[in-house]
């Protein structure tokens, strides 16, 4: 999740109050304080609130939450007389575009850094790692509008950011660090997206890298911002960026987007509207607020709110990406009201608790095993074929394998518990004997959950007779009718192994572990073992 660095000086200026007040209240709008330093704090915000991924956005929200400036924030917008044409060629590759011009900026190194950080966080969150949205910012004084957004031959050359020589777009994808990282997004395309000015100077190669020509520096006062992507979230990303810059006094200007001979203007930062009834707010939150109070809480959260009888008309700022449904507004009412002011109350719902029969059975088996002197262990269900089959001398069976294992140790889910217990003995071979351990738990057989019980006993005289007593004692405690038959499980010694059958079906095995298996687990004492399905 995005962590935003808030410099106290900047934050104090933008919010208009002292840092301690801000830090005290910031978690209550929905944030985790990661680190508090002498001059700055790192705060983690939630991924559904990209409007809080900048110090400007946080200041806007905090002014409302602290009651310093409430209600809908209004931004002026003028036309820029700058246009950009989307050519047909780029539509199959990356069809959506939203642009703006922002003038009157006064950058310093910190505010440039903050803008770059906002861009990166938006790429991650809204942008799904640039797939859905990528943002380019440009010093507009270096280029001549109108602009064109088109798809071009991959051999087209320009000087990308961080490099000092011309490179073809194809070479950028192979050699430029950003190109290497994001090349997969253009896989299969035989033409690549490009934004150029009226003199064919390159602004950007979306979604990979900008040209070096329009790089933003501390001298930049006027910026052209382009957001390209796959769907309407390009407009949201643009709104978040331009309104954050406007918080520092910059002026927003719109850009004409020409596509298929039709023209439209971006950004559109007019609010959207929803109607919220008092009843639905109070019933979801368990409160008894009146319309005025609800409106006040919404205004603290920077919504516009007009009371209309039993309902409230809510104006939603164009930078809020998280309002999908009325309940999203109701959550903001709760945040404005203050989570700390709620009086927790148990629901009156009367129900009777009931344990799951399988869990009860497992608890009973633990009781029996402990009674028989076995110590309980717990292990992972993730394992690998080598331990599960090869070291046990067993042939590999059809098991549940994970597609992209994170290590060679964890490639599949166990279908039996016994190999795990052998592993536990192996890790504990220097611990005092005798060792008697068991585990009861989930395994997956034929893609279905099943529960098994396994136990092992190791000491210098562990043998078949011992484990047979244990197995028969368990089956006796469970009042099960069973038969014992010869087994051919290769993990056990021939002539010292047996199957457990219930109604003719094999449900388990017990006996003396084969010396080869004992050595495979780097052990040297005899091991008597059993495993059975739980029934």
């Amino acid at each position, binding site marked *: 999740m995005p962590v935003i660095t808030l410099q106290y000086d900047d934050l104090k200026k933008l919010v208009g109050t002292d840092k301690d007040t801000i830090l005290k209240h910031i978690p*209550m709008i*929905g944030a985790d304080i990661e680190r508090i330093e002498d001059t700055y704090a790192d705060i983690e915000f*939630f*991924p559904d*609130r990209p409007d809080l991924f900048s110090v400007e956005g946080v200041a806007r929200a905090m002014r409302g939450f602290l009651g310093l400036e409430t209600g809908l924030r209004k931004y002026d917008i003028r036309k820029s007389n700058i246009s950009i044409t989307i050519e047909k060629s780029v539509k199959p590759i990356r069809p959506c575009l939203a642009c703006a011009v922002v003038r009157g900026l006064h950058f310093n190194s910190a505010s440039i850094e903050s803008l770059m950080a906002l861009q990166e966080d938006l790429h991650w969150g809204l942008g*799904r790692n640039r*797939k*859905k949205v990528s943002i380019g910012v440009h010093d507009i004084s270096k280029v001549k509008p109108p602009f064109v957004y088109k798809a071009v031959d991959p051999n087209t050359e320009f000087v990308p950011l961080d490099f000092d020589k011309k490179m073809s777009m194809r070479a950028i994808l192979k050699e430029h660090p950003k190109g290497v990282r994001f090349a997969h997004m253009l896989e299969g395309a035989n033409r690549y997206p490009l934004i150029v000015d009226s003199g064919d100077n390159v602004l950007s190669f979306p979604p990979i890298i900008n040209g070096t020509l329009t790089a933003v520096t501390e001298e930049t006062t006027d910026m052209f911002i382009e957001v390209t992507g796959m769907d*309407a979230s390009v407009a949201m990303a643009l709104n978040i960026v331009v309104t954050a810059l406007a918080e520092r006094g910059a002026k927003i200007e719109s850009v004409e987007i020409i596509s298929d001979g039709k023209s439209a203007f971006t950004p559109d930062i007019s609010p959207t509207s929803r109607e919220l009834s008092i009843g639905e707010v109070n*019933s*979801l*939150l*368990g409160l008894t607020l009146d319309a005025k109070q609800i409106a006040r809480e919404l205004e603290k959260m920077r919504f516009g709110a007009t009371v209309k009888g039993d309902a409230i008309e809510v104006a939603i700022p164009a930078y809020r990406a998280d309002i*999908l*449904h009325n*309940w*999203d507004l109701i*959550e903001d009412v*709760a945040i404005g009201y203050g*989570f700390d002011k*709620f009086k*927790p*109350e*148990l*629901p009156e*719902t009367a*129900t009777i*608790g*009931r344990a*799951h029969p399988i*869990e009860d059975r497992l608890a009973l088996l*633990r009781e029996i*095993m*402990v009674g*028989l*002197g*076995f*110590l*309980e262990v*717990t*292990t*992972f*269900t*993730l394992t690998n074929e080598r331990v599960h089959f090869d070291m046990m001398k067993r042939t590999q069976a059809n098991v*549940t*394998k*994970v*597609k*992209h294992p*994170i*290590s060679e140790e*964890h490639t599949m*889910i166990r279908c039996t518990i016994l190999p795990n217990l052998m592993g536990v003995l192996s*890790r*504990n071979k*220097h*611990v005092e004997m005798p060792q008697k351990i068991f585990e009861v738990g*989930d395994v*997956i057989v034929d893609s279905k*959950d099943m529960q098994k019980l396994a136990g092992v006993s190791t000491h210098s005289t562990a043998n078949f007779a011992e484990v047979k007593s244990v197995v028969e004692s368990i089956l006796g405690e469970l009042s099960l009718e069973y038969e014992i038959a010869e087994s051919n499980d290769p993990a056990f010694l021939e002539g010292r192994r047996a199957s457990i059958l219930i109604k003719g079906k094999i449900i388990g095995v017990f006996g003396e572990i084969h010396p080869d298996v004992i050595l495979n687990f780097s052990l040297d004492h005899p091991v008597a073992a059993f495993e059975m399905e739980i029934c």
Partner: protein
Amino acid sequence: MASDKSSTLTANEKRILLALNKVKSAGPQKLAAESGLQIDAAMQAAFLLAKKGLANIVEETIVLYSPTPEGELYARQGLPELRILAYAEGKPTPLIELKDAFSDKEISIALGWLKRKGLASIEKKGKEVIITPLKTHKKDPQEEVLRYLLAHHPETLTSYPSATIQELLGRDLIRCTERTSRVIAITNEGRKLARKGIEIEEDIGQLTPDLIRSGEWKKKPLRPYDIHAPSTRIFAAKKHPYQRLLDEMRQICLEMGFEEIKGNHIQASFWNFDALFQPQDHPAREMQDTFYLDSKGKLPGEYVQNVKEMHEHGGDIGSTGWGGHWSEELAKTNVLRTHTTAITIKYLADNPNPPVKAFCIGRVYRREAIDATHLPEFEQLEGVVMDEGVSFKNLLGCLVEFYHRVGFKDVRFRPGYFPYTEPSVEPEVYVPELGWIELGGAGIFRQEVTAPLGIEHPVLAWGLGVGRLAMLRLGLRDLRDIYAPDIDWLRRYPACQL
């Protein structure tokens, strides 16, 4: 005096005194062999003699060392720094050349130790790092210890320099255990008594059925025990302390009137993600975070169309949905469940009539690299309440009650974010040593989740990873300890510490 003393000695004490007189001093085993007694009985008698000033018992703690698995490996292969030194054959060698023959881990270990042991100098020349051997490889004290232990462990290392032992412990190549041993020696007074001659008159050590039936026990002296003599430690078999914690959680949920539910580890993405209104391009659904399986699951026909409409345009509840196209094929892909919510949401879909109060404790999977606080599988606990008219205030009520019962007196709430709940809340509990800590998450299921499944009333939900709680309650520093059992630790962990 002496003869008085001799007459108060039990037969076993006399045997031990005579044995000691012969060998002067001995450990428990030798003493038992010399006296012909069992070790327990020999020690009982020795302690009684010590009380009477006839013997001395000196406790000696010895430290035994064993190699760790990594240490065993190096004992066989040689330490990485020495192997690299041998590889360089006395010539300056660029780091990059080593990469063919050694792993990154080995190289990073070796660089530090080559410097520290003064075996080689390491310099940056331009972009290259050059390793120049300063000494040829002679005997390395660390390696000697490792080889010795490989053959003898567990064993004492009294003849090796303690600096070397400390280095090996620091490298996590050996580990140590302490063992207390006792040496029993005869005192001057004991020797005087023994010289005078001791006559062993049979006394009764162990009561037997014969002695009881015949009344013989009344005729012979009954040997008294030294009630303060240390006993042999035995360990009770017991449940795993972590299981004890899980049982406690389960008991709390049952007492609060919740029904326990269970479900499969393998779930179609539909139940794990789509039914919970997770957009299909959500980062949490990517391969990096979730264990995907090759198989596909079946979709519940009755809900598929509703869920699709909800994702694409928000159904008919006044939601915007996520837009774009919702793919049935993606929803069929099986995963190892990433949360127990996959189980609770299906249960609610199957039981849409209020009231429902259900909980689930089960193993869940995340594709995470293992470290002290992250595991690829762990237990999650989740509770849901669905009823007419339940509210956010009631959710907070459930949380306060639950955490109180778990043992946290102070609970407070902060706004939170979870993709399938709105409002969402992060509960925090107060732990005296640590302050306020975040524990679990909660919220009310979004209508985008409940409406397509025909659930008409609010669902209050909360969950927590039990591992976090285990660290607090069991005093664990490393979550891996739960699933990689140390039998000695389990034996010594008191059942009622929890």
